[in-house]
């Protein structure tokens, strides 16, 4: 092809390929690759698309179980939820774009994950987000948060898919690398899931949706590099159009209700390249594309640009023979293009022609499945010992525990996120039975007596201090959140955000986190059905805390109604399920009150976690639980306050230290604990059921009055009006955002 730059080893290096990778590419094509081919190799073998550093570790995750309808490897995973239906879900990162251009970066993150779900033939019913920012005391972070939230709202609201929950944490380490992970759940008939396969030699390959522009070229490659000091990466960020995606979704779902296609795949990262290669590779076929037929938004686009563009709102599909007209008709109804751009072949090659010449001819299997795979060196970081070495005894106990509680409730990580979720349409589709702000979002499944409970969790401070334990606790907390709402955990998706994998300590964090997730998922019977790895969350050598965000899907069955965290009625007994240990290490209390992100994080015992979950679900089955809340950041005192604030009612409890420090008792974060309430008349029954399970518990007090009163060893230690705590909790985020703004 005339006019294309000459391909050299130096150009390959500029494309992010190592010398060995380039040699491998040369060997695969049997000559010097064309410029277009070089572009294709560079994106397909980028960390983002190839998982070259993570693949050997990911194999350790449990992915099977009777509930699994679709495991990893497709656009999204799926678990059975009864009546022939399945929940289709996946979480994905959009970190790099959301730092460069937070509004569009976050918006297109939502757009991408929605496409992954409706590509499977599922109608998306819920979105959640896991976000990380630097502290709001910095103007840049206030800007990033506001724009990320606006971007998520812009896309999700217009799509008519409710954003029902999520999590946000703030820590200095995210100043230069904020994280935006989007989690989408859809509903489909298990027998009618669609896959990304180019099946049937001779079948037409069709391009549907928006036109291809020059936006997002090399987005996947960018996501596979660290940020430098002052690089201008804005052109690599895509611009989203949720209206077009809404039309695309309706058109695809209408198309999939009929019998017109063999396979379909979203054009996400690496656009036309990855969709065509992956579809052919999965089916063991080849794909020939005539690039002259690709709908382009701009004049003069060349094959290299077409293949690498990450323009949004596009899909590639393989139609059944003779069904092209029906495909075109449905897309025309939704005012979208559907163009035949190629054909499925039997030669196992990705062959691209443009203006009469062949511009790329690569064996698909080598390109897609035989991408480089690295067993990168792993080494525990030398600094971790120093972080563990925290002398808790040297820390003075606070004089006023009520003041600590107030500060914790107003800490942006703990405080109410209503300022955020009120900007999201969280009710559209009329399924949201438990609104954002409880442990899990709960959606009814129309036409059944069941509900889905969804949660996303990760305490990355724990993961910094102990990546194995932190990752296991992320799974356990996500499970506890869905259990607290009354649901049995079914499965997870994970979004693994880490620093530069070429550094052995980052790879060690990754390997340990994978072990933690694997062990927790086995113990809690929640297989991993989909996921995403995001490396290189690092700026000038400073990597983020390991942040393996866990998205959990659970099911409420047997005609039971969801349970919320809000205390309900005066006189209800308050019960703490699970044991409290000396677990101040890595706590929010240490960070907020003592300014230390140190110590040994709580040690999670998976058997205990499982038993506690089962015990609570047993109580739920018996209809005994009036409110239930997981104990996490801020410990028991914060959990009690959150239940009281949500219920707008007071609580009186008495606790005993039994050898613990008072701050460890009140604010320590021992896992596998719940705060729940029961009607006084059912107290005895609850006690006998719990006693049978062997799970430790204590009836600590009752719901009463308008104040939160906690006695420790018979001394009134915290005594605050619930309304005042509520004011601090509800307005903290808005105040932090307006400060100096």
């Amino acid at each position, binding site marked *: 092809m005339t006019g294309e730059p000459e391909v050299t080893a130096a150009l390959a290096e500029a494309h992010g390929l190592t010398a060995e990778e380039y040699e491998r590419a040369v060997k695969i094509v049997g000559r010097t690759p064309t410029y277009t081919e070089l572009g294709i190799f560079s994106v397909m073998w980028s960390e983002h698309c190839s998982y070259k550093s993570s693949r050997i570790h990911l194999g350790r995750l449990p992915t099977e179980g009777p509930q699994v309808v679709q495991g990893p490897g497709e656009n999204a995973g799926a678990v059975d939820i009864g009546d022939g239906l399945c929940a289709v879900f996946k979480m994905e990162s959009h970190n790099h774009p959301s730092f460069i251009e937070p509004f569009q970066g976050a918006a297109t993150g939502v757009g991408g994950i929605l496409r992954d779900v409706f590509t499977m033939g599922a109608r998306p019913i819920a979105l959640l987000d896991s976000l990380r920012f630097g502290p709001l005391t910095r103007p840049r972070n206030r800007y990033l948060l506001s724009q990320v939230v606006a971007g998520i709202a812009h896309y999700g609201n217009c799509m008519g898919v409710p954003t029902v929950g999520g999590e946000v944490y703030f820590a200095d380490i995210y100043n230069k690398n904020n994280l935006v992970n989007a989690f989408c759940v859809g509903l489909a008939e298990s027998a009618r899931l669609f896959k990304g396969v180019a099946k049937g030699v001779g079948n037409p390959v069709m391009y549907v949706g928006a036109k291809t522009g020059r936006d997002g070229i090399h987005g996947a490659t960018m996501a596979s590099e660290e940020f430098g000091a002052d690089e201008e990466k804005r052109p690599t960020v895509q611009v989203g159009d949720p209206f077009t995606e809404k*039309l695309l979704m309706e058109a695809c779902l209408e198309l999939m209700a009929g019998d017109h296609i063999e396979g379909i795949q979203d054009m996400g990262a690496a656009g036309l390249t990855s969709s065509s290669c992956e579809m052919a590779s999965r089916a063991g076929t080849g794909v020939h594309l005539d690039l002259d037929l690709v709908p382009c938004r701009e004049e003069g686009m060349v094959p290299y640009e077409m293949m690498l563009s990450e323009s949004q709102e596009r899909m590639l599909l393989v139609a059944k023979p003779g069904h092209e007209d029906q495909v075109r008709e449905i897309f025309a109804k939704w005012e979208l293009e559907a163009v035949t751009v190629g054909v499925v072949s039997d030669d196992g090659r990705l062959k691209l022609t443009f203006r009469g010449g062949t511009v790329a001819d690569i064996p698909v299997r080598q390109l897609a499945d035989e991408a480089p795979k690295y067993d990168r060196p792993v080494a525990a970081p030398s600094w971790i010992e120093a972080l563990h070495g925290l002398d808790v005894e040297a820390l003075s106990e606070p004089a006023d525990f009520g003041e600590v509680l107030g500060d914790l409730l107003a800490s942006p990580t703990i405080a109410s996120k209503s300022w955020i979720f*009120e900007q999201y349409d969280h009710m559209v589709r009329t399924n949201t039975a438990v609104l954002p702000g409880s442990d899990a979002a709960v959606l009814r499944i129309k036409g059944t007596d069941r509900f889905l409970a969804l949660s996303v969790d990760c305490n990355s401070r724990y993961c910094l201090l102990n990546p194995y334990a932190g990752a296991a606790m992320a799974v356990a907390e996500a499970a506890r959140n869905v259990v607290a709402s009354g649901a049995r955990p079914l499965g997870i998706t994970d979004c693994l955000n880490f620093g530069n994998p070429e550094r052995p300590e980052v790879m060690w964090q990754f390997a340990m986190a994978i072990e933690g997730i694997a062990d927790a998922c086995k113990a809690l019977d929640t297989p991993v059905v989909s996921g995403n790895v995001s490396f290189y969350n690092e700026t000038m050598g400073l990597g983020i805390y390991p942040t393996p965000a866990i998205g959990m899907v659970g099911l409420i069955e047997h005609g039971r109604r969801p349970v919320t965290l809000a205390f309900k009625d005066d006189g209800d007994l308050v019960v703490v399920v699970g044991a409290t240990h000396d677990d101040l290490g890595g706590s929010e209390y240490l960070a907020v009150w003592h300014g230390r992100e140190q110590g040994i994080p709580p040690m999670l015992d998976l058997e205990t976690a499982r038993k506690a979950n089962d015990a609570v679900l047993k109580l739920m089955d018996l209809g005994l639980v009036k409110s239930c809340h997981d104990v996490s950041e801020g410990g028991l005192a914060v959990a009690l306050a959150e239940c009281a604030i949500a219920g707008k009612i007071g609580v009186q409890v008495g606790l005993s230290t039994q050898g613990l420090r008072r701050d460890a008792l009140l604010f320590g974060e021992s896992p596998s604990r719940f705060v729940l309430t029961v009607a006084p008349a059912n107290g005895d029954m609850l006690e006998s059921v719990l006693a049978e399970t062997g799970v430790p518990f204590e009836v600590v007090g009752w719901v009463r009055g308008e104040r939160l009163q906690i006695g420790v060893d018979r001394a009134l230690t915290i005594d605050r009006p619930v309304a005042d705590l509520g004011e601090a909790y509800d307005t903290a985020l808005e105040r932090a955002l307006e400060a100096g703004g």
Partner: protein
Amino acid sequence: MPIGVVVFPGSNCDHDVAHVLSAVCGADVRMLWHRSHDLEGADALVLPGGFSYGDYLRAGAMAKVSPIMAEVARFAREGRPVVGICNGFQVLVEAGILPGALVRNRDLRFICRDVTLRVEQTDSPCTSGYSRGQVVRFPIAHADGNYQADADTLKRLEDEAKVAFRYCASDGTSASSRDDAHNPNGSANAIAGIFGEHRNTLGLMPHPERCAEEILGNADGRPFFEGLVAALAGVA
């Protein structure tokens, strides 16, 4: 007594309205595609919420020129029931079927939360199931719900009792100004919903279809649709 739900490209509460009308109220529902001129024998029309045409240009500005809008206008002129919810209200206003304009919320942000409303008039199909002055809780979900009109129009709406719903405190006290905490978006006279010329047309920003089932924790919106279905049955 079929009820037509008009579907524009970008409508996203169309399924929700249809669900409440059919599964909750037992009505016969027809989904009417915006490009059609055929109302399929509908005896009432609902324009649902969403982002018709992505709300590009201005909310409702493109949808008003959809082919079906000529039929909607004719149907309204004939005195037959037309209800616009959220984006549907914006479309009716843009089409001139209802007076005034819906501009950007006072705080410039999209707001999704429950608000309390006072039912001001009960002599229309959708409000007949409420008592006058009753306080109900409906969710809102919009960025452009700030109702504004010139002084003459506002006076006429008030004089002719054409204000259907008004934002209020939970005890029913009216929001006193556009900055009042109980006025979520800054609407003039705290107006949340209005009637057109003959009370057969109604537009409102809050979403009664999102609170019409006990399972969602709030059924305050159910009489809104039951009233419409009952009125149509009465006509027959």
